[in-house]
């Protein structure tokens, strides 16, 4: 299929194109210089043309997501999707069924989504769900920081073998990168305990969270992975934790030679100042100052959206705290020798002091960090809000008026403590394109995504809003509406959505890293690990590995490691 998108205002930050009127030509699923012959023309006059959205942190598939679905039938009853001739049926709301997840992302012009956390032992399940999510390309980040064999190696400082083992795991379970979740703390949660600082000891491993983060950061470089380590910090969701965040960012500062080496995720949840929930305030200024001064870090927001959410994370101890506070129903699910997971339904309320402060922290961070290439738009779906709320976030970032509209209704004491009302900055469409696609694609190291240059994947979103006529600051509702339902979503060169409705049911690829590890090192490491593996786990090493044909559309990225 050949497509010519004509006369749109193109926002393509990776190629420094800022709202120029251009034609985009598509052939065989790629962006090309020009096309001729039989062509489908899309008239994008007075519309915005951007690369397809790329979400680098969302919980869409796997055992914890599915436990959340199971836990909340009440959540599904109010949000149903009927079967049509094109699309399968399904349910929402906070944790949509797999097909609905794919459709709703696509309707907003998103084309690539990374599942943010999967334990290796259960990653076969994650891939089975990813196989059933249509419309988008996807992948999953592998939780490795509380993995016993990794911890054993790190505590002995045997980094090379540790790297070889992690490389083997990523190949074996078809993972995309190294996810760290409350390093050390989740292992202690196996005994119902947690860590409090990044220098606490984690018995019996004789290691600290600091050493785990540093070790994995080094290994990430040794393996030459496309994405940096992806860190969910210690003390998440605890008053005063902005200090833990800053210490965690600092602890790898000497490992960077100017390049970006660390991604901290859902930073809102670790931006809390104060000593208790009553004295909670925003740590956004300190965080933004640090990030503005230190170029080796990227962040994503984990922005709160008022309304229903289902919190879910591998951070078991944090979820237990949330259960104790809320008394909502609670799932905990530990995974042997690897990690844990917790799930608690939650509703963020405007009139709640803590929730209002949480809401302001995300936006303050986004507005105070100067470089949009290093702070990305997420809601840590479905934790702080749902991915379907992204258009709201876009409106908040682009319009002070939109923020003020909410500020009128939030808890008054909270409002009096916020710096948000004093922030004048409003994002441009160019900056929105960075924080929702160009920047995230770059951070993930997906070279053919997030831009519209020649040879890029033909993943394109067209939004029906005229950037030259509209004043987003005032007319934020029009912006919100346009981003809610893309005029067109093009995936792999096919028109898959039109006027926000699914036009074709397609299946995207699953990306994973196929790391090339020197054979001798791999063989010796695996033979060393095998005995331990069978002592720690209840499955055989052979049965832990996932065959490539278990993925519907496998897309390995060949990586030459530095080992």
């Amino acid at each position: 299929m050949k497509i010519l998108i004509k006369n749109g205002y193109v926002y393509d930050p990776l190629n420094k194109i800022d709202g120029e009127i251009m034609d985009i030509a598509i052939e065989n699923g790629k962006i090309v210089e020009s096309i001729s012959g039989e062509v489908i023309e899309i008239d994008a006059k007075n519309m915005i043309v951007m690369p397809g959205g790329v979400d680098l942190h969302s919980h869409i598939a796997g055992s914890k997501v599915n436990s959340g679905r199971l836990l909340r039938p009440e959540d599904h009853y109010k949000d149903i999707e009927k079967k049509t001739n094109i699309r399968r049926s399904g349910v929402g709301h906070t944790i949509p069924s797999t097909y609905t997840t794919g459709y709703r992302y696509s309707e907003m012009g998103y084309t690539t989504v990374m599942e943010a956390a999967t334990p290796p032992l259960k990653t076969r399940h994650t891939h089975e769900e990813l196989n059933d999510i249509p419309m988008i390309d996807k992948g999953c980040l592998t939780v490795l920081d509380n993995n016993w064999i990794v911890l054993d190696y790190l505590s002995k400082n045997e980094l090379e073998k540790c790297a070889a083992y992690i490389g083997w795991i990523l190949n074996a379970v078809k993972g995309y990168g190294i996810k760290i979740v409350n390093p050390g703390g989740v292992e202690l949660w196996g005994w119902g305990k947690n860590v409090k600082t990044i220098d606490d000891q984690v018995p019996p491993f004789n290691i600290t969270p600091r050493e785990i983060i540093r070790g994995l950061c080094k290994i990430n470089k040794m393996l030459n992975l496309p994405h940096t380590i992806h860190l969910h910090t210690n003390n998440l969701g605890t008053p005063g934790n902005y200090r833990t965040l800053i210490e965690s960012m600092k602890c790898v500062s000497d490992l960077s030679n100017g390049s970006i080496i660390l991604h901290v995720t859902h930073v809102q949840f670790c931006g809390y100042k104060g000593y208790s929930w009553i004295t909670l305030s925003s740590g956004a200024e300190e965080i933004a100052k640090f990030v503005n001064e230190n170029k080796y870090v990227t962040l994503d927001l984990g922005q709160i959206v008022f309304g229903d959410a289902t919190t879910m994370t591998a951070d078991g101890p944090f979820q237990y705290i949330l259960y104790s506070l809320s008394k909502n129903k609670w799932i905990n699910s530990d995974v042997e020798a690897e990690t844990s997971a917790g799930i608690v339904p939650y509703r963020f309320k405007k009139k709640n002091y803590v929730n209002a402060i949480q809401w302001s922290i995300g936006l303050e961070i986004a507005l105070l960090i100067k470089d949009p290439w290093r702070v990305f738009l997420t809601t840590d779906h479905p934790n702080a809000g749902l991915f379907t709320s992204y258009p709201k976030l876009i409106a908040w970032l682009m319009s002070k008026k939109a923020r003020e509209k909410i500020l009128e209704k939030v808890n008054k004491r909270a409002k009096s403590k916020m710096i948000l009302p004093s922030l004048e900055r409003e994002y441009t469409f160019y900056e929105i394109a960075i924080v929702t696609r160009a920047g995230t694609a770059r951070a993930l190291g997906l070279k053919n995504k997030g831009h519209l240059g020649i040879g890029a994947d033909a993943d394109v979103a067209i939004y029906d809003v005229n950037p030259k006529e509209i004043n987003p600051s005032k007319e934020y509702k029009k912006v919100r509406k346009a981003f809610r339902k893309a005029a067109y979503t093009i995936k792999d060169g096919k028109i898959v959505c039109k006027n926000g409705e699914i036009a074709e049911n397609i299946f995207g690829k699953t990306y994973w890293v196929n790391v090339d590890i020197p054979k001798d090192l791999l063989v010796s490491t695996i033979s060393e690990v095998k005995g331990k593996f069978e002592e720690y786990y209840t499955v055989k090493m052979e049965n832990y590995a996932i065959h490539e044909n278990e993925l519907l559309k496998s897309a390995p990225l060949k990586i030459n490691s530095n080992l």
Partner: protein
Amino acid sequence: MKTINNVVCSFCGCLCDDIEVNIENNKIVNVKNACSLGLSKFLNYNKHRILKPRIRKSKEFVNVSLEEAINECVKILSNANYPIIYGWSNTSNEALRVGIEIAELIGGVIDNTTSVCHGPTIIGVQDIGESTSTLGQIKNRADLIIYWGSNPLHAHPRHLSRYTALSKGRFIKTRKERKVVVVDVRKTATANIADVFIQIKPNSDYELLTALRYAVNNGEIEQDEVAGVPVEKIEELAEMMVSCKFGALMFGLGLTMSPGKHRNIEAAIALVTDLNKYTKFVILPMRGHYNVTGANNVTCWITGYPFAVDFSKGYPYYNPGETTIADIIARGECDAALIVASDPISHLPIESARKLSKIPIVTIDPHETPTTRVSRVVIPSSYVGIECEGTAYRMDGVPLRLKKIVDPPDGIISDEEILKMILSKLKGD
């Protein structure tokens, strides 16, 4: 002779993955590491096979071609107003994915055997959540192991040696380091190897669980006994629970299917949840069929609900008691059934089974069952994990890939392939 290692046993929810199988001329001749149940399946699966598709014509079964059987199945399903599609706990996730699409396409109800076993467990979890873990967490850490209303030595024979009391883990290595408690209405084989056996009066689990929860939270019980158990014994057990380092409560149908049903499960979950104030504690259901856990998972990710999903409105709708097949059949509402890898005529309540036998049934199964005998159409399939590959989930949700180790009989294909043929005919492809 060829030896295949690390074969996953497709019998019970334990999914033991260390089985060694010897094959000679496409025949399994020897099996190592399996329990008596697994061994029996590997050695005897080939008995009582159905080898030809068949259709009931007037009163007799007539062997037909696969195509003819599929056509008849499609005719029955497309003529039905409210068909049910049921089974799934003894087949692969891949087969179920197709089954769900068929149910959605024809506006039927898809249900799995959870309906008649651990359905109350799921409803309990939906009400209050659960603190759970994979089995390896128990192997590595648990110093207190409680089996409640389940007898694993008979139903899941390797559960204790692979995952709990008799296993060797990183932190806990011997039986001596673990306390084992059995709560049951009779002294079972498992109770015989326990440190503490608590014999409970039948049908009073809820009372005992509630009393235990009260004791765990430092309440003083005023009665002399609860559920036939002296209060001293309840307090002793509560003390064991609070003071262990890592406790695990595993329960079976003794808890789910005795009066109280999901209320029993809620009481057990609430007890375990409370225990996490004092120590680490998890709860796990002892799932029976080898892939009933997978059936719940696949149904849940595609439809939002883990069993009993009604598509008659064009979207997934779930209301156990209304959309569960035993109830639908009892109300006489369904007018056709597709049964895959299950035997509802044997395990449904007798009234439902009798009514089911009156409507046209299509059964896909490798071997003869009472259900195949009353079916209108029978299509034989291969065994997942022996004659074809497939994914299944262990009782704790650990997903495993089942292997193909021998060829199926001539002309026999997998559930997944048969269902795909039915789906494609239904779609008019």
